[in-house]
C-alpha cells in the first residue's frame, strides 16, 4: 500500500502549501507563498495529528476529488466546499478516518473561497529552495494538481484522537459579504493627503475578480496625493504613486495609479509604487476567504494590536483548542 493519493479531479488551482513558506529568497524574486488562510490550514493539520505547519492542500473556489491509496486521517477546514467521502456528506473541522480506495470530493465554495485538506503524515513532495509551498504561476515547488497526478504522503504519527475544532476557535467566515480587515497606516501614508488616509479607513472597497494569491485588487474612491508625491525628485517617476524602487512588505496596500492592490503570499517583493497602508498578517485569512464582489472595510490598528491579533491566531491554532468527538 503506497502512501499517496491520486487526483481524480484537480479543482481550480489546488496547490500544496506549507509553513513558513519559502524563506530567504525574496531578494531573488521568490515570494514566500504558503497557505493564504494560515488559521484554517493549521487547524486542518492539528486535526490529523500533524505538526501544524506540515504540507497540506489549499483548494481555491472549486475543490478537488482525491482517491486515497492508503488508510489515513483527513480533515477539511476553511471555506464550505461540502466535502463528501464516497458520496456521503462528512463534517468539516473534524478528524475523518478514510480507508485506502475511498474518495474525498470537495465541491464549489458555498461560503468563503479557500478550503484546506490535511492528510495524516502530510504531503511529501520534494522541497524546492527549502519549502514544499507551491508558487503556481512560476512553477516553483511544483504546480497546481492535475488530473491523474499521484501525490506522495509522509509517515503519520500514531495515537491520534478523533477531534473537532470547536466553533468558537474557528475563523468566522463572513455571511453578509462584508469583512472588517485590520490594517496599519504606512510605510508611505505621508504620500497621500490626510483626508485620503481617513477615507481609506472609512470607505467600502470591493474585491475585483482579478484578485488572486498574488494580489487582491480593490475598487473604491479616488486617492488624493500630498506634496510629497506630486512635488518630488523626478527620479521617483512620473505618476504620483511612483517611488524609487523599494522593498514591499507582505500585506502592503500597493497603489499603482489609482488601483490599490494588497500584496499577499505570492506577490512581488520590490517595485516602484508606494505602499500607503499595510494589512496585519493576522488578517490575511480574511483576504483569503473574501470572494469577488465582497466588500472590505479597513479598521486602523497600531503595531501593538497587530501583535495581539497575531498572538490570538497563534493560540487558536494549537492542539489544545481541539475537543474530542
Amino acid at each position, binding site marked *: 500500500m503506497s502512501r499517496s493519493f491520486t487526483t481524480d479531479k484537480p479543482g*481550480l488551482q489546488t496547490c500544496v502549501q506549507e509553513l513558513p513558506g519559502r524563506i530567504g529568497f525574496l531578494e531573488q524574486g521568490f515570494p514566500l507563498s504558503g497557505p493564504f488562510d494560515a488559521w484554517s490550514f493549521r487547524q486542518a493539520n492539528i486535526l490529523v495529528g500533524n505538526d501544524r505547519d506540515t504540507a497540506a492542500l489549499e483548494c481555491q*473556489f472549486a475543490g478537488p476529488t482525491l482517491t486515497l491509496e492508503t488508510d489515513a486521517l483527513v480533515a477539511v477546514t476553511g471555506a464550505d466546499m461540502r466535502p463528501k467521502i464516497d458520496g456521503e456528506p462528512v463534517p468539516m473541522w473534524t478528524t475523518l478516518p478514510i480507508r485506502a480506495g475511498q474518495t474525498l470530493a470537495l465541491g464549489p465554495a*458555498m461560503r468563503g*473561497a479557500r478550503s484546506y485538506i490535511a492528510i495524516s503524515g502530510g504531503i511529501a513532495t520534494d522541497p524546492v529552495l527549502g519549502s514544499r509551498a507551491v508558487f503556481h504561476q512560476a512553477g516553483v515547488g511544483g504546480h497546481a494538481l492535475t488530473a491523474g497526478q499521484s501525490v506522495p504522503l509522509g509517515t503519520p504519527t500514531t495515537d491520534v484522537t478523533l477531534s473537532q475544532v470547536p466553533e468558537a476557535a474557528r475563523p468566522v467566515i463572513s455571511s453578509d459579504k462584508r469583512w472588517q480587515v485590520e490594517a496599519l497606516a504606512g510605510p508611505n501614508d505621508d504620500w497621500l493627503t490626510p483626508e485620503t488616509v481617513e477615507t481609506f479607513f472609512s470607505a467600502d472597497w470591493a474585491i475585483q*475578480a482579478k*484578485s488572486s494569491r498574488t494580489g487582491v485588487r480593490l475598487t473604491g474612491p479616488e486617492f488624493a496625493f500630498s506634496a510629497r508625491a506630486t512635488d518630488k525628485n523626478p527620479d521617483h517617476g512620473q505618476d504620483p504613486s511612483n517611488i524609487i524602487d523599494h522593498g514591499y512588505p507582505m500585506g502592503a496596500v500597493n497603489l499603482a495609479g489609482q488601483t490599490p492592490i494588497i500584496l499577499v503570499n505570492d506577490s512581488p517583493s520590490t517595485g516602484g509604487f508606494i505602499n500607503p497602508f499595510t494589512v496585519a498578517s493576522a488578517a490575511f485569512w480574511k483576504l483569503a476567504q473574501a*470572494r469577488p464582489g465582497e466588500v472590505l472595510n479597513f479598521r486602523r490598528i497600531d503595531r501593538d494590536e497587530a501583535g495581539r491579533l497575531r498572538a490570538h491566531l497563534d493560540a487558536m491554532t494549537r492542539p489544545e483548542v481541539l475537543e474530542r468527538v
Partner: protein
Amino acid sequence: MSLQTIEAPLPGILYHKPSPDAEPFKTPGDAVAVGDTLALIEVMKSFMPVEAELAGTFKGYSAADGESIEPGAPVCEIEQA
C-alpha cells in the same frame, strides 16, 4: 424534449462573451453540442469555461453578462435534444 438548467460550477463573475467586443457564445435558438462553451466565469484572473454536458437548443441566459454569480445558480437553459 426537456428544459435543462445549467448551473454555475463555481463562484465568480459571469460573462456571456469570450471578450467584451465579441458576440455572445450562444443566442436563443442556437444548437448546442456536448463540450460547447456556453459562458465564462472569472475568478483569480482566470476565465473558467462553462461547458455543455448535453446537446440541444439554447434557450437563453439566466443571469446577466458581468454579474456576480454563486455556485449552483442558473447560468442558462437548454432544451435537451
